């Protein structure tokens, strides 16, 4: 005791700084600080952020033993803890469904929990207890492999700003209700939902991330949406559903998002958008849309090409465009309309701000080439166009290049980068 000549450097810093330091340590280290000196004994117990992962316990090959020690560790930490807990996160694949988690959530619901994130590993999904729905102060909820079944009296999370559900079992109308009963919701992320027809009413929503087998996506009330990313997977049911659909998907999905700045579509999104009536008449303009990324666009389907064209011509401030082709769709038997691109002369529209274009997975089909020609001819400030051919069509690469070289460029600064691996 006291063989150090200097005065204590750190123990008397204000609690907010101590907490700031302790929250930046892995939780096990933060708790170990309690044996340093008498002042430090209980400093960790008032931390408002508790983040656990598998580094909290010694890992062995025995998953059950690791789970047990993890459960013990977390339970004891909660038991020793004093004061409010604002953030609680357990993010490890070792976590399995068990009654301990129910008790944690009950404890947290009594301690002003604001951010809750639970990731479970493979195994039985965890059925979320009813006490979760009583967490009035919840601002962020992230669940992985859980089941949600709110009681009928559930009126929503009034403070919830961010909702992230990944592989969560929940009835479709329930999820819609949850979304629309959280008035402050700004960020929504739903992944791996099966056959969901989603109707989103969230007046404050800014970020939307959807991934899964969606039958329908209807953004009914999302006027403030800024960033949107959708990856739609296809099953046979959904394909059928698409065939039978009569409404205009484009309008349903992108009709009410005037503030959109970034749009990202994957897999069957462009196909989804193409179904329904031709939106050509509707005067939609996306004044803030700066980045568009559309993947797996089938350039053999005229409808999809029209969707892409419509989108980019309605976005006067577009800066970056990424398109990737899809060589997997069954080739349309229609003869490609070669005149199509001739009709779309450069005078039709100019992409006055378009600077960067990335085109990948090109197979060299007619419409792809036409599209590239069109872009080159209509982008006066283009800086880079990078083209990556599809790996399956090595022979066609030369043809692509030959055609490419002939295209007129509206921008004298434009660089064409052809990436062949």
């Amino acid at each position, binding site marked *: *005791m*006291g063989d*150090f*000549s*200097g*005065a*204590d*450097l*750190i*123990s008397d*810093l*204000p609690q*907010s*700084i101590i907490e*700031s*330091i*302790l929250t*930046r*340590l*892995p939780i096990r*280290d933060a*708790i*170990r*600080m*309690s*044996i*340093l*000196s*008498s*002042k*430090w*004994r209980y400093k960790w117990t008032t931390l408002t952020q508790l983040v656990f992962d598998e580094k909290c316990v010694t890992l062995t090959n025995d998953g059950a033993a690791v789970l047990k020690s993890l459960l013990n*560790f977390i339970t*004891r*930490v909660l*038991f*020793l803890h004093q004061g409010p807990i604002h953030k609680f996160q357990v993010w490890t694949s070792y976590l399995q469904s068990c009654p301990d988690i129910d008790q944690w959530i009950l404890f947290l619901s009594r301690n002003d929990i604001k951010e809750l994130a639970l990731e479970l590993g493979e195994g039985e999904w965890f059925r979320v207890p009813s006490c979760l729905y009583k967490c009035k102060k919840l601002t962020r909820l992230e669940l992985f492999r859980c089941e949600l079944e709110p009681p009928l009296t559930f009126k929503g999370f009034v403070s919830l700003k961010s909702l992230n559900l990944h592989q969560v079992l929940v009835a479709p109308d329930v999820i819609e209700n949850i979304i629309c009963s959280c008035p402050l919701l700004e960020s929504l992320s739903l992944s791996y939902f099966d056959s969901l027809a989603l109707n989103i009413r969230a007046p404050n929503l800014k970020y939307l991330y959807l991934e899964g087998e969606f039958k329908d996506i209807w953004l009914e009330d999302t006027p403030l949406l800024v960033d949107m990313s959708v990856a739609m997977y296809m099953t046979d049911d959904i394909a059928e559903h698409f065939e039978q659909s009569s409404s205009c998907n484009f309008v349903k999905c992108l009709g009410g998002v005037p503030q959109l700045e970034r749009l990202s579509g994957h897999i069957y999104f462009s196909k989804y958008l193409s179904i329904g009536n031709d939106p050509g008449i509707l005067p939609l303009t996306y004044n803030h849309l700066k980045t568009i990324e559309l993947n797996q666009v089938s350039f053999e389907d005229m409808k999809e090409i029209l969707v892409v064209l419509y989108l980019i011509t309605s976005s006067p401030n577009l800066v970056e465009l990424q398109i990737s082709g899809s060589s997997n769709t069954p080739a349309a038997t229609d003869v490609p309309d070669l005149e199509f691109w001739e009709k779309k002369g450069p005078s039709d529209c100019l992409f006055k701000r378009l600077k960067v274009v990335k085109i990948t997975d090109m197979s060299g089909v007619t419409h792809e080439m036409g599209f590239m020609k069109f872009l080159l001819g209509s982008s006066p400030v283009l800086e880079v166009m990078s083209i990556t051919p599809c790996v399956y069509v090595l022979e066609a690469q030369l043809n692509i290049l030959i055609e490419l070289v002939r295209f007129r460029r509206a921008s004298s600064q434009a660089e064409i980068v052809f990436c062949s691996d």
Partner: protein
Amino acid sequence: MSEVDMPVIKPGMMKPYIWLQTSDGSTQQVEQEVAMFCPAICYEVIQNGMGSSKNYAISLPKRVNPAMLSLILDYCRFHQVPGRSNKERKSFDEKFIRMDTKRLCELTSVADNLQLKPLVDLSSRALARIIEGKNPEEIREIFHLPDDLTEEEKLEPLRNMTDDPRIRLLNRLYAKKRKELKERERLKNVQVEEEHIDERSVDDLLSFINGKNEDLKGVKTSKSKKKNRRRRDEEKNSSLNEASETNGKESNGYDFVSQSPEADGFQHRSGETSNVQDMEDDSFSHRVECDDGDIYDEIDPALKEIIDREVEDFARRLNSDWPERMQEILSAGQERMAMQSTINGTGSLRQHACPDLEHK
């Protein structure tokens, strides 16, 4: 606002300056845009109209000495320029934060006082990086932390706390008892008169121990004899300052022992316990190194027997009537504390022997 001239807001003038006063009383001028990057200074300027001249210099919080201020201003000067890229800022931060730990702690504190949140975050991160992965001794050394927890308290709190609260109290009492015994033994160690009684008790003790544990016979004998001799030598040298200090306390030590209500068992063993202390010393030093759960096994048998009896006593009483017994135990401890202070108000040694009831 105030009626003093305000060069800070007159347009068209030379670069405006703000006056700041540091903890040592000296004042200095700082470019306005640099100083205003600091929310606390900003507040003073805008809300209170301070800083426009030397007489109205903004007096910074007391920990802000000139060296710290210049660091802070370097930070502000770099970051208040709007055109810098994130990468540039990041690399500046990384270089900026490289300093010795003492200055880093000071910087964190000062940045907090001036409400410069980005700098607080940056320095907290740096401190966390210093702490992460180090063992307790290293951390104590870096930050000059006093190692003032008892071994019992150093038991991982996570282990103890799942036990029954009664067992927890027992553990604490255990630890208290051990501490007391240790201190008592140390006291008696330096007393001259004790010598004779000690000699006698060695044999007593040995036979007692031998009865308990045949193996330790030889070892204990030699050790205790060595220790006795050593003690005698030390006294003759009077190198131990405590000898002179505590000579007057011997009688008090006896009084103390006899008057303690719970130490009934100790009276007739008082002589022996001094030798017990030898073994205890060994076992204590052992204990400090060994792993937590084995503590009670390492205590020498004699002491263990004493403690066991005490604990049985406690347990019996606890089981009978919990709250009252709590009171009894706590008040007994307080009485003892009161007694000790009346016996001897001075002397740090004595104070160490006091049961620390608050320190739970």
